[in-house]
Structures are given as C-alpha cells and as structure tokens.
C-alpha cells in the first residue's frame, strides 16, 4: 500500500467507516510512515469535532448528581498486604498469622458493609433529589396537563403528560403501569401531521410508577404536536412507532 492508497483508507479509518478486515494493511503502512501517521492524527481531530455539529440539549439535572455521587462514592480499595514473616517459631507465627487473617477478614467485611451502605445512601439521596425536582416542576405557574388514556385491553394504568412552555420541560407521570414484556420497552411519542417524534424510552419502577422527563427543546420551533402516545417497542427503542399503543392523549390546539 502506498501513501496515496493509505490516505483514502485513513480518512475512512478516522471516521470509523473502514471495515475491520481492511484495517490491517493500513496499520502496517502506518507503522512505517510518519507522514501518514500524522495525517491520521489530523483526520481524527477533524472527525472528533464533528460531534459539535449537533443540536445542544441540556441533560437532566439528575445526571450531574448521579455522576458526582458515583465519583465521590467510596470504592473498593486494594487489600493491604499482610507481611509474611516466617521465623523459627513456626507455631506461634502460624497462630499469629491465623489471627491476623481472621481480623483482616472481619475488617474487610466491615469496610465492605460501610461502602455498601454509603452507596445505598448516595442512591437514596439521588432519588430524594429527583422527587424534589418533580415537586418543583409541579409548582411551575404555567404547568399544563393532559390525561392519557389506556389503550391496551385490561390496562388500568393512569398516566398524565405535564409540560411547561416557559421551562421547555415536559414529563409524564403515572401509576400501575406493568413492566414491559421481555425484550421490549415503553417509548413515548409526539404525533403531528408530519409524523411522529420520539422522546425516549422508559420503564416503570418496580411498583409501577412512571416519571419520564424530557426537554421540549428537541422539537423545532413552531412544531405543534396533536397527540401523545406510549407504545411498546423493541429494547433500545424504535425510530418510528411500530408496536401496540399502550396509552394516548390528545393535545389541544
């Protein structure tokens, strides 16, 4: 492979568009060509910046709390090494070692318990914060609500869609929603004359409660949906509604 051939493959490689089986010859060339290696570095810098060309959305506030809580949560630390000292007094040393091992195991257990409790506390705090967030949303002066009606036979779930135009924030809350069947997930959609727009997938909690918030800035300015739907879709979500409708609500014009 010469440099000219390599350059085309390098652009594809930087983009992640080179099939795996075509990578080894490029790597062999790169190993012997400093110029092309530099070319690859530059191509990677160009490709990395493409990530900036995407509409900027604010992540939900809980994400920051989750990350900081996970970062500062005590982690399992490497076990201190026990000094292995085998002197002449074999029995005494063995007893001392056995006792050391016993106390060490106890100490480690206590440490693990403490870390587990700290982790649980941290998670519980995150849930409490989420509830505060929800309570704050309910106090927004322009909060509007649309009830969503179950569409599946026998479904008794109660779901509502709330939104604040001022905050550009919407969320659905609900109760008694059963877990989705294996391999499937609930997905929320806004419907308009020009089609459907998904606003994420969700699962109810173990008790069947639902809280799924999203940023309304994802919609283009002036886009007016007429209905909101929850459907069952394959795990990972679907680009368009394909599964059965679970609940639906009509949005006033």
């Amino acid at each position: 492979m010469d440099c000219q051939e390599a350059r085309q493959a390098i652009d594809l490689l930087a983009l992640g568009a080179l099939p795996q089986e075509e990578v080894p010859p490029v790597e062999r060339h790169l190993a012997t060509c400093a110029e092309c290696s530099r070319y690859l570095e530059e191509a990677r810098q160009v490709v990395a910046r493409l990530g900036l060309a995407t509409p900027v959305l604010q992540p939900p506030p809980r994400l920051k709390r989750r990350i900081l809580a996970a970062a500062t949560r005590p982690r399992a630390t490497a076990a201190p090494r026990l000094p292995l000292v085998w002197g002449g007094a074999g029995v005494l040393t063995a007893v001392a070692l056995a006792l050391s091992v016993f106390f060490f195991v106890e100490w480690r257990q206590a440490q693990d318990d403490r870390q587990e409790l700290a982790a649980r506390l941290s998670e519980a705090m995150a849930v409490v914060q989420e509830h505060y967030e929800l309570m704050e949303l309910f106090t927004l002066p322009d909060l509007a609500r649309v009830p969503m009606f179950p569409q599946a036979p026998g479904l008794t779930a109660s779901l509502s869609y709330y939104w604040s135009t001022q905050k550009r924030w919407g969320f659905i809350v609900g109760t008694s929603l059963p877990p989705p069947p294996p391999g499937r997930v609930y997905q929320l959609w806004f419907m308009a004359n020009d089609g459907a727009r998904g606003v994420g997938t969700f699962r109810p909690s173990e008790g069947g409660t639902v809280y799924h918030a999203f940023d309304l800035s994802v919609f283009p300015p002036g886009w007016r949906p007429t209905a909101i739907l929850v459907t069952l879709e394959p795990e990972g979500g679907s680009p368009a509604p394909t599964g059965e409708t679970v609940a639906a609500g009509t949005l006033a014009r």
Partner: protein
Amino acid sequence: MEDAAGPGRHGGSGMGPDYPQASDEELMAAVVQRDPRALEALYDRYGAVVYSLARRILGDAHRAEDVVQDIFLRLWDRPQLYVASRGQLLTWLLTLARNRAIDHLRAQGRQQRFLRSPAGAQLEAQDPAEQASWALERQQVLAALANLPPEQREAIELAYFRGLTHREIAEATGLPLGTVKTRIRLAMQKLRSLLLQEEG
C-alpha cells in the same frame, strides 16, 4: 491567569482553582488530585455537548445519560488517559462519547443503524449554547459542514452518527462503493482544510 500554579495550589490553604474560569489543564490537574469540584466544573463545561452527541446518535435520553456517566467517570478514574499534547480535552471527550454511543448502537443490531432517523438534514445549525467556551468552535464546524455539498454531508453523517462502514453506506444509499468513497474523501479533504486551517 494570574495564578498558574496548577495543582500545587491545593496544598496548605485548601484553596482550589477558580473552577469556572480555570483552564482545562488546570481542572485536569485538579482531577488528578481527586478534587470533585474540578470534575463538576468539567461536567458543567462539557456535559451538555457530550450528552447531546450521545443522544443524537442513540436517539434515547436514558442511554445517552449512561454514556455521559461512563465518560465522566472514566475521566475521573483514569485522567491520565487524556494526553493534552494529542488534542483538546473536548475533542477527546467527544471521541469517547461517539465511540461508546456507536458501540451501543451496534449492539442493537444492523437494523437500528440503518433505520434510525432519516438521512440528511441532521448536521444542522441550531441554537448553540452561546455562552459555552466551545460555541465558537461549534460555529466553525457548522460553517465547514455547510460548505459541503449535501451528498457529501450525508455520507459523512451516515459514517459518523450511525457508525456505518463505506460498504454499509453504499448498501443503505444504493450508490456504488466507489462513489461513496469519493464523497467521503472529498468531504474529508474539505473539512480538513477548513477546520485545521481555523485551528492554525
């Protein structure tokens, strides 16, 4: 900055850097010192753009959150993986986020990558976070992309946002493989000349 002492300033007085104003290098040095306020400042600076990219690729808020959490915890746990001499922190984070999100997408299977949101019209100028430190750079990238013919933009988008190989792009668009390669080559040449020129 007046105080350029870096992590050394954390000793004794307990004072940290002026987090919102500190440079990426200062914040990374503080992350190495296990200062969570530095991680928070980096998240405040780049969390939204990393999240937006992951969400754009995955089309799912929850999984995008997981990607962002992975990226920032990786930064916290292994800050030494970032080598400043090889590029900006932001581009490193975007690369990690893109790769992680594409891994998720590939795990969903071929159909998801082929069928996700319609091709084209994705690399659009939208309201950027005007105050963000990366707003100007974002404008440069958008301007560079706007310079590409639509068919070249589409080829770049299919590769970058959907993780398709050149063969898969040919299959998805019905174009000959040679045409796809040419479009990508021409697009990359133009992007390279515009973006690296801006940098220089």
